Structure formats: C-alpha cells, structure tokens
C-alpha cells in the first residue's frame, strides 16, 4: 500500500494450523490482500525477520508491515521473538500485534513491557474474530503510520 522498504507483507506467527487457516480466512474475508508469510514457530519467524536459515538471501531491509504474533510457540516462544525484534535496529519499529488465546494478565503486561504495539485475544466466536481481524487490518495496514527507515 505504501512505497519504500516496508512491503505489504504480513508476518503471521502461528503454530496451530487451524488458527492459521482461520486467520488467513478472516484476512481474506476482510479483503486484506497483502501477502501473508506464515511462520510456524519462533525460530522460523526470526529466520524470516533476519533473513537467516530458510530465508537466507531475503532482503533483510524489507520488513513486514505488521507481525501477528502468537505467544505460545514451539522452540522459541512469542515473547522471546518480540524481545529479539526489539533488540535489533532493523526490526525495532516493526508493529507487533500479539494475537493469542491467553487472557492472562501476566502475558498482557509482559507483551507490552517487551514492546508489543497491541494485544488481541483471539475470541472463540469466529464472527467476533473476523471483526477483530477487520479492525486490525484497518488500523495497522491503513491508518497506522510508521517511520520510514
């Protein structure tokens, strides 16, 4: 939607294939046409972000427009991914929306402490979920301004 280094990519970090499929469906049903890259665990997410491992050779400077991050992930959990992102100059200002099942107070507090931009609890009611995704897309993909790297 915008020119520059930031592409239109959305990075979805989600280990549960059901949730992945439902999220993709929700995005699609909300007519969000951005390319969605799915990472199934923390390591994959970090590989993508820093162009390592499977994503070696990718242009590191092209960072996703928003990262939808689940917290409970195999290998490296979501909070760790968030921490690493915020520690690197390259990914420091990439918007991160924590999208998780947990409504634990501690998870919410930790997420914001580590620099999450938003925290959304995945509702069980898919209609509500769709509504949430619609608002996310509206906000993070259309309204939110990020500094130009």
């Amino acid at each position, binding site marked *: 939607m915008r020119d520059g280094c930031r592409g239109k990519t959305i990075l979805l970090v989600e280990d549960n294939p059901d949730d992945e499929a*439902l999220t993709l469906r929700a995005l699609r049903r909300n007519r969000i046409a951005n390319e969605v890259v799915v990472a199934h665990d923390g390591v994959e997410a970090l590989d993508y972000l820093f162009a390592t491992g499977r994503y070696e050779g990718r242009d590191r400077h092209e960072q996703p427009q928003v990262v939808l991050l689940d917290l409970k992930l195999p290998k490296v959990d979501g909070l760790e991914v968030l921490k690493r992102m915020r520690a690197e100059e390259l990914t420091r200002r990439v918007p991160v929306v924590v999208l998780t*099942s947990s409504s634990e107070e501690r998870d919410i507090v930790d997420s914001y402490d580590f620099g999450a931009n938003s925290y959304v609890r995945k509702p*069980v*009611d*898919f*209609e509500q*979920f769709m509504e949430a995704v619609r608002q996310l897309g509206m906000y993070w993909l259309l309204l939110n301004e990020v500094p130009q790297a």
Partner: protein
Amino acid sequence: MSGYRPGLRARLAAVIFAASATVTFVGAAALYAYQVASLRGEARAQAAQEVRELEPDLVELLATGDVEAAVGLVRRIESGGALASLVVRDRAGRALLLYRRGEARAVEDAAAAAPGPQAGARVVLPVRRGREALGEVAAAVPLAHYEAHLASYRRLAAPMLAGLLALSLLLAVALQRRISAPLLALAAELREIGRRRDFARRVRTGLRDEVGDLYAGVNRMLEALEAAHGELARREALHRAVLEHVEEIVYRVRVADGDLFGGEVEFVSPRGAELLGVRPEEFRRDPALWLRHMHPADHARVREATEALARGARSVVRVYRLKDAAGEWRWMEDRVVAERDRAGRIVALTGVARDVTPQRRWAGALERLVSVARELLEHVAEPECLRRTVAAAAREIVRADVAALSLREDARTCRYVAVEGADVGLRPGTCFDLEAGGLCGWVAAHGEPVRVADIAGDPRVGADRAAALGLRAALVVPVVDEGRVVGGISLFRREARPFDASDERLIALLAGITAIALRMQGLVLGLEDHVRARTEELRALNRELEAFAYTVSHDLRAPLRAIDGFSLAVLEDEGERLGPEGREHLRRVRAAAQRMAQLIDDLLALAQVTRGELRSETVDLSALAREVVEGLRHVHPGRRVEVDIRPGAVVRGDPRLLWTLMENLIGNAWKFTRGREPARIEFGWEESGGERVYYVRDNGAGFDMAYADKLFRPFQRLHTASEFEGTGIGLATVRRVVERHGGRVWAEGAVDEGAVIRFTLGGGRAAPRRESAA
C-alpha cells in the same frame, strides 16, 4: 614505793624507842627526887637531935631569960654540932635569941627580928618543962653536904641513862621486825599479784593472830577477785569473738559539737578494716577514712539519712557503697543509733553495718536474668544472637572477664559457639574433645558445676594451657536439658579472684534458661523449616496450577475456536447445500463451543481468585458498582433498570478481586431481573454486630431458600440455561473473593421475590496489620 615518808619499820622502831626512852627518863627522875627527899629528911632529923641535946640550956634560958644562959647555949652550939642557925621564941612569940653561925645576938623585940636562916633543912620544935610549954625553937642545918652527895649521884646516873637508851633503841629495832616482817611480806606479795594480775595466787603465813586474819582476808578478797576477773575475761573473750567473727561491722563514733561526720572513731570491729583493706588503727587516726571509701554518688543520700538523727530520730538506716580492698563496690546497710546526753545532744553514734552486696547482686542479677529470658525469647529463631546474648549476660552477671558458651556437637565433641570478653585464646568455633579432660569435659562427664580459684593449679587444665589462656579463676556450669548435658557456660577471670557460690547459683539459673531457650530454638527452627518446606511446596503447586491454567486458557480454547470457526466457514461456504436442519445443527455446534469457552473463562477467573498475592489498597465499592452498571447498560442498551448505589463504600482490599466480586453480584442482579418492569438493583450497607454488612438487592427471579446453601458452590445452578444463561461459577467466585478478604457471604430470597446477597469483608483482614500499625 613511798620514799617521801618513813616506812613502817622506821615508825615502829621510833614508837618502841620513844616508849622505852620515856620509861627510862621517868624512872631516873623519880629516883633522883627520892634521893633529894630522903637527904632532906636526914638533915631535919639531925637538926632535931641537936636541938634535943641543947634542951636543958633552952629550958633555962626560957625559964630565966637570963643572958648567961644564952651565952652558955651559944657556947655549947659552937662547941659541937652542925647547926647553922637557931631562933628561940617564948610563948608570946617573942624572939629571945637569934643565932647564926658566926654571929649571935639577943633580940629585944622578937617581932622585929628577921626570919631565921633560909639555907638548909629547917625544924621547929616546942620547948617544954614537964607539961608546961615554955616556947619554941627553930633550927636549921646546912645542905652543902647533901648537895655534894647529889652531884656525885648525877655523875653516876648520866652514863647509865645513855646506856639504857642505847639498849632500848636496839630493842626497838629488834622488836619491830617481828611485827613488820609479815606485813611487808604481804605488801610485796600483793604488789607482785597486782603486777602479774595473777589473782589465782594466795598469800601464806603461820601466824594465827590478827596478821593471820589479815592474810586470810586478803586471800578471800583474792578469791573474789579471781572469780570476778575470770567472769570478766570470759565475757571479754565472748565479746571479742563476737566482734571478730560477725560479718557485720560494729562501730562507735564519739560526736563532738554536733558534727556527725567527723567524730573520733572509738571502735570499729575487725571486719571493717578487713573489708576496706586498712589497718584497724587507721580508723582512729583518720575519721574521714570511711567517707573517702564511699561511692561519691551515695554521699548526699548518706548525709540526708544521718541528718535525720540530728532532727531527733533515734536510729536511721543508711545504704551506701564502699570500695573494698579489691576495689569492688560493696553495698552496705548501716543501722546507726544516736546516743544522747541529758540535754538531748548527740554524744556518740553506734552502728552495725551489714554487707548486703550479695542480696543486692541477687536482686539485680535476677532482674537481669528475667530480661535475658525475654531477650532469648525474642531472638529464639536467631541462633547466633541467642548464643551471644547468653555469653554476654553470663559475663555481666558474675563480672567475669571472659564468658563462653559451648554446645555439644556429639558424644565426644563440644564447640565454643560464643565467646564474650577480653581477647584470649578462646575462639568461637573452636572444637574440643570432651574426653581429653579439661573443665568442660569434667563438667560434661559429671553433669555438675565446677569452680576453680586458679586453673593453673588444676590438674584438669594444667599450667601450660592456663598460661596460654592468661586466665586464672574459672566457673563452668553445665547446660542440662532432660538430664543430658547439652553444653556449658564457662566463665573466667584474669586474676585469681574466685567465683563464689552465689555466682554459681546465678549461672545455674542462666544455664536453665539457656537450656529452655535452646530447646525452643530447636522447635522454632524446626517449625520454620517445616513452614519453609510447605511454603515451597505450595509455591510449586501454585506454579503448576498457573501452568495448568495457562494451558487450559490457551490450548483448550484453540480447538473450540477451530470448531466454531470451521462451522461458520461451512455455514458460509456450503450453507445453501446443507438445508435448514444442517444449518441448525451447525449453529448448535457453534453455541456449544462458545458455551464451553465461557465455562473455561469462568473457571479461569475462579482459579485466578484463588491464587496469587492478595494486595491491600483502598477500594471504593460504590464506584466499582457504578462502573459495572455502566458496562452493563452499554452491552444491554435496551434494558430499563433502576439502580440505587449508596456512595462511599470505601474498603481495603485487592482491587482486581473486588472488581470481580462487584461484577458478579451486579451482573447476577442484572441478569435475574430481566423481564421485571421496572427492574431494581440496590447496593448499600448496614451496620450489624459491629461490622459493616454490604448487600446487593434485586427484585428479580429470586430463589428458593431451601437451596440457599447450593448457591455458592461451583457449577450449581438454580435455573435452567434456557431461563438464565450462566455457568454457575459466579457466586462461587464471589465466595472465594469474600473469604480471601476474611469475610462472609450469604443470600436471602424467595422465588419471584428477588434476592439479597450480603457480604462482609472481615474488617479488612486483607490489611488488618498495616492499618493497626499505622
């Protein structure tokens, strides 16, 4: 010896001599007088004889008066005889003839005639013829012859007299000896007895006279004296023994001019000098000695007490400290009595001063022990502090230089766990072998205390170790718990000033307290360990629960989301093909999934109420109620509900939990008043039994009181899901919240008549400590 007057002997000799000399003189004088008288008699007899021889001539003369006759007579007188003079008178007294040897004359007038010759012996004789008296004649003979006779007699008498006097003097000297010797012997004997004060001696004599009686009298007197002296000596010995051995200091001070402090010290019993470490005579020399040994802080009090005597008190008790020979302060209790003269002036003070230091020490030490016990109780969970407290208290109570507490590690070894006092060879942490001897080993083996005046001389310690430690006097008391020696309290002094029996008793008390404290420490520490272990267990459990809850919230919801999501996807994508029944089934699948999600959320909320720290903050329940109502009005804009919230329900508690509480109560009221017109919800409180009872009242569906006890149990519902939705966890959560705050919750109601849920918050048990401490 009386040298200024004659002695008995001289006086006796003089008296005897005077008597015999007087007798001699009187005898000699009488003899002489007799001689003189007899010589005069002889002369007068001669004169009479010669007159008688002249008688014829005299008669003739007187008869005739003839001169011839007179001449013849003179002739005859002159021819013979010794007459010196002769006077012849007639009957008329007229002198007829006056003759003096060598001269003779006829006297015409006899009356005018001179008296007859004076010298010599005179006789007057009558001259008779027959019976006829013719006249008288006076004749005298000269005494020269007799004078010569007396003179020769005197010449003879003088030497004889001198001889007699000398003889009587010798006699006097010899005689006085017989009388004076026994008396002088008696005098000498008495002098000797007096000098030797030997009243048991007796004087002896063979005499049975008055001197003998005198000796007997003297002996009786000596007997009485001996008895009296013996009694006196016995009393004095008793007196001395009493004064020398009593612990009290007995004294007497003479008071002059009302000066009660500077009088002359007449007497102080030996204990006084012993206590102060002075020579007894120093008291007499230095009246201020006593005051100088007194503690300066006690002067004013002593002065005040003493002055009560001056104001008329008969006796007072003065309490003060004296510095003894060792430089220690001794507490004295001094009862002093004033002696007064007739005018009421104090002339002397007699007092008995008692050393009450031990009693005072006991009182002080017992007080200290009580405070130690309290300290030990306070620090019973801090082993290091407890040990140091014991050692420090022991050192202080008996004024030792070093105090150590040792505790038994096992059967053989003991360890010094605290050492208080001067820097010596004893180090805390040092281990020692009980079977290797030593005082501690002995005490541990015998279970009784030991006191040693100088450890250098004690075979259990030995001179080398004593010298290395630099300590002399020692006291070791075992710490015994249930008949087992668990340790010991050791006390030492640098000098060989031994610990006494009261030191030992005091430390034994401390050891008893220590044993109890150690036992308590074991219990408390054991309990603390137990609590710590349980707390750790609970924490682990809590962590597990948290992990479980996390998993539940995260992992149980994901499949539900998939069920719901894909059901919807099917409905959206294939709805037309399913037909109405298929769509209804999928709608039910989705509803079930959502209900389960709600159940999970409620369960998690309940779990959240149970775990986690309880915070204590000021919370306004009224404000919370308003917020909840606002939220509900927002969600259900179509409902008309009258809400009455009494403002100012400010409590202390956990804000998050209290939010859950109000959300559930008001949410319930909101839910169960559905269909009421108008619906009413009231929040307020009333005071009951000294506590504040909050309530949420509604005019909703109410409930049957028969099931009131079921209300607060999880998953218990009184309504069907079709009547009122819900999981049955709300009130269970309410009860958890209330109980965690120390309160109670109960419900009242009737079917179709609304319900009242009342609760207390336990006076804020969530934060009672902090509030009362503030």
